[in-house]
C-alpha cells in the first residue's frame, strides 16, 4: 500500500479563484492510500517544494500527487523535488487543475467537482505507480557516415573536428558524389570542383576520418550507442597500400570503350580507371566487367606496367566489422531517367540531354572539354531549349509527386552559362512555375531573364519532333494562349531528383522508416528534421528530401551536431516509460514487432520457468535503448503481456474508473 501525499496548489488566484482548494484538499484526504494532504499558494515555488520535501520526511510518503498546472509545465520540477526528498522521481503524478479546469470553467461548484475528480484520477493512478529506473547504455565513440558526397563529407568533417572518429562508406571508387560532377554552382557561379576538392582532401587527410570507398554496408545490428555494422569493401583489384597513383596502368590499358559513369556516359574510359582527376583516393579500380583479363584471362598489361606491383587480380571482397555509436545516412540521389517520357526523345536523339549530362558538357574537364556542341554533328547549337519539371510535380503513377526544388535554379544557371559563353545562342526555358526561394535566388533567376535575355516561356512542351536534324519543340505558351513551335538544336531536360530505390534495403537494415518516394523519414517534420525516428540514426542531405548544396551542407552540420550529442556522452540515459514484455504471458506471435516504429522489439528463443514448468519459448524482448514509449505494441498485443511502464493498462483503467466514479 502506498503512502500518498496530496498537494493542492492555489497558483495564486489562477486556480483558487475558481476551485475551492479547501474542498479538494479535504476530499483528497479520504482517497485510498492518501495519508497526508495539504495546500499551498505556489506549489512550484521554493517554499512549495520544501513543503513537499518535509511532508515526505514527516509522513513517510511513498508517492506525491500534485494538483496544479499542466504536467507539461512542472512535471519535471516535481520529479526533481521527489528525487530531492529521496523518492523515485516517477512516484509523482500531476492532476492538471489549471489548464484543464480552473482556467476554462467559471462555475465554482462544477470546477471544484471536476478538480476533485482529476485529483482522484491522479491518486488512483499513483496508487499503482512503481519506481522506474531509466536504462543506461554505453556509447561507442565512433560514427559511421553512409555516403561520401558533400553531405557525408561535411558531416564527417564536423564530427572528426569535434574529436571523434568517423568512417565514411562510399559505394563508388571515390568520394565527392554528385557535387563533383557539377560545373558551376548557383547562385554564385563559382566552380564546384574548386570548393569541393579541398573538402575531399581534408576528409582523406583527417586523422579521425577513415574512408571506405568502393564499399557498401552489408549488415547492421544493434542500437543507438552500439551499432554493429558489416562493411563490404569490394575488390578493387588494386592494392591500396602499394599503389602510388601514378596512372601508368590507366594509360596502358587497351580497353578504352567503357562508359564513364562520371561523365554520365558521354565519354569513354579504360577498364582500369579513376573516375576523375581529383578522385579521392587516387587509386584506380579494375572494372571487372570490361577488363579483358577478367573476360578472357589474357592481357594483364596493367599488372606488368605497375612499378609497385599493386595490381592484384585475385583480390577478394573484404568484410570489415565495426562498432559505431551513431550512423548518419547521406546517400544522396540520382537524377530520374527521362526515358519513360517518350515525347522528349531522350535516348532517341543524341541532342536531348539531361541537366547533369549538360553540366558535364559545360565542364572544362568534361567530355567535350567544355565546348558546347551537338553530339549528332559536333556543330555548335544555335538554339537551346530547357524544359523544367521533367518527372517532378506529377501524379504518383507518372513520376514524382514532389517538387525537386533545385531544377529552377540550375536551369537558370545553365541558361546563364550558355549565354555567358555564347551570347549568340538563343536560349528558351519552358517552365510551369519558377520557384526560387533562397538567399539571392530570385535575383539570380531575374538576372538570367533580364541581363542574359533568356526567353522564359510559361507552358509545357508537348513533344519534340526530329525535323531534318533539328529538334522541333511543340509547346504551348500559356500566357499568350497560343501554340508555339521552336526549332532547337539542343534540348536539356531538368529531370527530377530521385532517391535511388536500392536505398530501401539500407532503410530496412537500419530499421529507419522511409516514405513512398524512398526518402528517409525525419523524426518530426518540423522539430526533428535531421533525425530518423530510429534513435541513433541521423539524416544528412538529399536522402531526406530534395535540397540544394547550402541546405545540404547546413543539414550535414546539423546531423553532425545531433550525432555529437550522443557521441559526447559516456552513457545514454533512456526514458524509463517504455514498453515491457511479460515473458510468462508472451505468445511470441510477433504482433507487437509488426507495429513498432523503431524496431525496438526482438524475439528470442528462451527457456521460461512458468511456475516450475520449464520450456523453450519464443518471447518478445524490448530493447530499452531503442524503445521510445509510444505504446503501439501494447494494444497490438492480444494477451496483454506488453505493457507500458508509467502508463500501464491498470493505471489507465484506474484513471478511467476514478473519473467515472461520480
Amino acid at each position, binding site marked *: 500500500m502506498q503512502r500518498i501525499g496530496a498537494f493542492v496548489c492555489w497558483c495564486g488566484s489562477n486556480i483558487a479563484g475558481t476551485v475551492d482548494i479547501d474542498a479538494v484538499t479535504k476530499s483528497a484526504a479520504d482517497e485510498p492510500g492518501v495519508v497526508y494532504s495539504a495546500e499551498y499558494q505556489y506549489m512550484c515555488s521554493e517554499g512549495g517544494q520544501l513543503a513537499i520535501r518535509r511532508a515526505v520526511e514527516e509522513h513517510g510518503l511513498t508517492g506525491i500527487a500534485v494538483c496544479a498546472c499542466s504536467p507539461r509545465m512542472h512535471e519535471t520540477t516535481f520529479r526533481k523535488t521527489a528525487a530531492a526528498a529521496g523518492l523515485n522521481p516517477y512516484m509523482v503524478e500531476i492532476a492538471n487543475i489549471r489548464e484543464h479546469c480552473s482556467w476554462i470553467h467559471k462555475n465554482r461548484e462544477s470546477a471544484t467537482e471536476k478538480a476533485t475528480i482529476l485529483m482522484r484520477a491522479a491518486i488512483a493512478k499513483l496508487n499503482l505507480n512503481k519506481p522506474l529506473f531509466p536504462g543506461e547504455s554505453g556509447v561507442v565513440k565512433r560514427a559511421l557516415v553512409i555516403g561520401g558526397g558533400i553531405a557525408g563529407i561535411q558531416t564527417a568533417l564536423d564530427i572528426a573536428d569535434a574529436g571523434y572518429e568517423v568512417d565514411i562508406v562510399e559505394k563508388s571508387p571515390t568520394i565527392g558524389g554528385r557535387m563533383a560532377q557539377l560545373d558551376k554552382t548557383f547562385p554564385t557561379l563559382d566552380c564546384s570542383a574548386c570548393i569541393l576538392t579541398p573538402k575531399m582532401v581534408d576528409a582523406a587527410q583527417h586523422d579521425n576520418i577513415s574512408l571506405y570507398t568502393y564499399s557498401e554496408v552489408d549488415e547492421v545490428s544493434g542500437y543507438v550507442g552500439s551499432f554493429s555494422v558489416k562493411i563490404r569493401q569490394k575488390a578493387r583489384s588494386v592494392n591500396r597500400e602499394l599503389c602510388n597513383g601514378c596512372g601508368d596502368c590507366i594509360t596502358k590499358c587497351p580497353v578504352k570503350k567503357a562508359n564513364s559513369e562520371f561523365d554520365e556516359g558521354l565519354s569513354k574510359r579504360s577498364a582500369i580507371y579513376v573516375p576523375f582527376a581529383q578522385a579521392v583516393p587516387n587509386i584506380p579500380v579494375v572494372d571487372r566487367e570490361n577488363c579483358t583479363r577478367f573476360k578472357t584471362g589474357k592481357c594483364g598489361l596493367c599488372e606488368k606496367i605497375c612499378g609497385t606491383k599493386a595490381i592484384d587480380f585475385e583480390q577478394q571482397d573484404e568484410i570489415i566489422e565495426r562498432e559505431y555509436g551513431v550512423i548518419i545516412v547521406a546517400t544522396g540521389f540520382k537524377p530520374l531517367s527521362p526515358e519513360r517520357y517518350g515525347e522528349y526523345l531522350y535516348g532517341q536523339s543524341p541532342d536531348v540531354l539531361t541537366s547533369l549530362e549538360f553540366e558535364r558538357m559545360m565542364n572544362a574537364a568534361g567530355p567535350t572539354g567544355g565546348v558546347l556542341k551537338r553530339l549528332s554533328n559536333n556543330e555548335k547549337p544555335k538554339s537551346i531549349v530547357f524544359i523544367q519539371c521533367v518527372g517532378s510535380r506529377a501524379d504518383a503513377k507518372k513520376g514524382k509527386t514532389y517538387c525537386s526544388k533545385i531544377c529552377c535554379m540550375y536551369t537558370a544557371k545553365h541558361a546563364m552559362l550558355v549565354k555567358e559563353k555564347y551570347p549568340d545562342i538563343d536560349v528558351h526555358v519552358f517552365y510551369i512555375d519558377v520557384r526560387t526561394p533562397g538567399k539571392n535566388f530570385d535575383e539570380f533567376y531575374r538576372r538570367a531573364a533580364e541581363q542574359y535575355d533568356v526567353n522564359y516561356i*510559361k507552358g509545357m512542351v*508537348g513533344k519534340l519532333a526530329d525535323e531534318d536534324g533539328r529538334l522541333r519543340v511543340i509547346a*504551348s505558351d500559356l500566357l499568350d494562349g497560343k501554340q508555339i513551335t521552336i526549332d532547337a538544336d539542343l534540348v536539356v531536360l531538368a529531370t527530377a531528383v530521385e532517391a535511388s530505390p536500392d536505398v530501401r534495403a539500407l532503410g530496412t537494415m537500419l530499421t529507419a522508416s522511409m516514405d513512398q518516394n524512398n526518402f528517409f523519414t525525419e523524426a518530426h517534420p518540423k522539430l526533428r528534421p535531421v533525425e530518423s525516428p530510429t534513435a541513433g540514426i541521423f539524416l544528412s542531405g538529399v536522402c531526406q528530401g530534395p535540397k540544394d548544396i547550402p541546405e545540404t551542407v547546413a543539414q550535414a552540420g546539423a546531423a553532425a551536431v545531433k550525432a555529437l550529442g550522443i557521441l559526447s556522452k559516456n552513457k545514454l540515459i533512456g526514458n524509463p516509460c517504455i514498453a515491457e514484455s511479460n515473458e510468462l504471458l508472451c505468445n511470441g506471435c510477433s504482433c507487437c514487432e509488426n507495429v513498432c516504429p523503431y524496431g525496438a522489439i526482438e524475439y528470442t528463443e528462451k527457456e521460461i520457468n512458468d511456475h516450475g514448468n520449464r520450456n523453450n519459448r519464443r518471447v518478445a524482448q524490448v530493447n530499452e535503448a531503442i524503445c521510445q514509449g509510444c505504446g503501439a505494441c501494447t494494444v497490438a498485443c492480444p494477451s496483454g503481456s506488453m505493457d507500458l511502464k508509467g502508463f500501464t493498462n491498470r493505471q489507465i483503467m484506474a484513471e478511467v474508473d476514478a473519473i467515472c466514479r461520480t
Partner: protein
Amino acid sequence: MSASALNDIREEVLRISGANPKKCMSCGKCSASCPASFEMDILPHHFVKNIRDGNIENLLKSKTLWKCLSCFACVERCPRAVEPANLVEAVRLAVIRKKGENYLKVDDIPEFIELDNEIPQQLIVSAFRKYSK
C-alpha cells in the same frame, strides 16, 4: 441558361468523366501535346480551368468540343492525371444529350460498320457522337 442548370451540367460532366480538374497545376502540357490545338478556340488546359471555375456556358459553344480528336495524347501526357480528353468528351456528351436529335440515323450504323470490322468500338462511338451534333 440558368446558373443552377449550368452547375448541374458541371456536376454531370465531373461524374461522367470521373476526372478531377482540381488536380490541374496549369502546366499546359495537354495543350502543348494536342495535335488539334491549332484549330481550337479554347485550349485543353483552359478547358480544364473553365470546368474547374464553373464557366461551362462558353464550353458548350466552343469549337474545341468538335475539334478534339479523342486521341488521348493529353491524358497520356498529363503529369497530374487530370484526363482533359475525358472532360472534353463529357461536355460533348452534355451537348449531345441537350440537342436530342441525331443527324446520323441509328439505322445507318450497321452499314457504316460493315466497311471495316476492325474499327475500334470507341472510335465508332466517338465519331457517332461527334458527327451527330
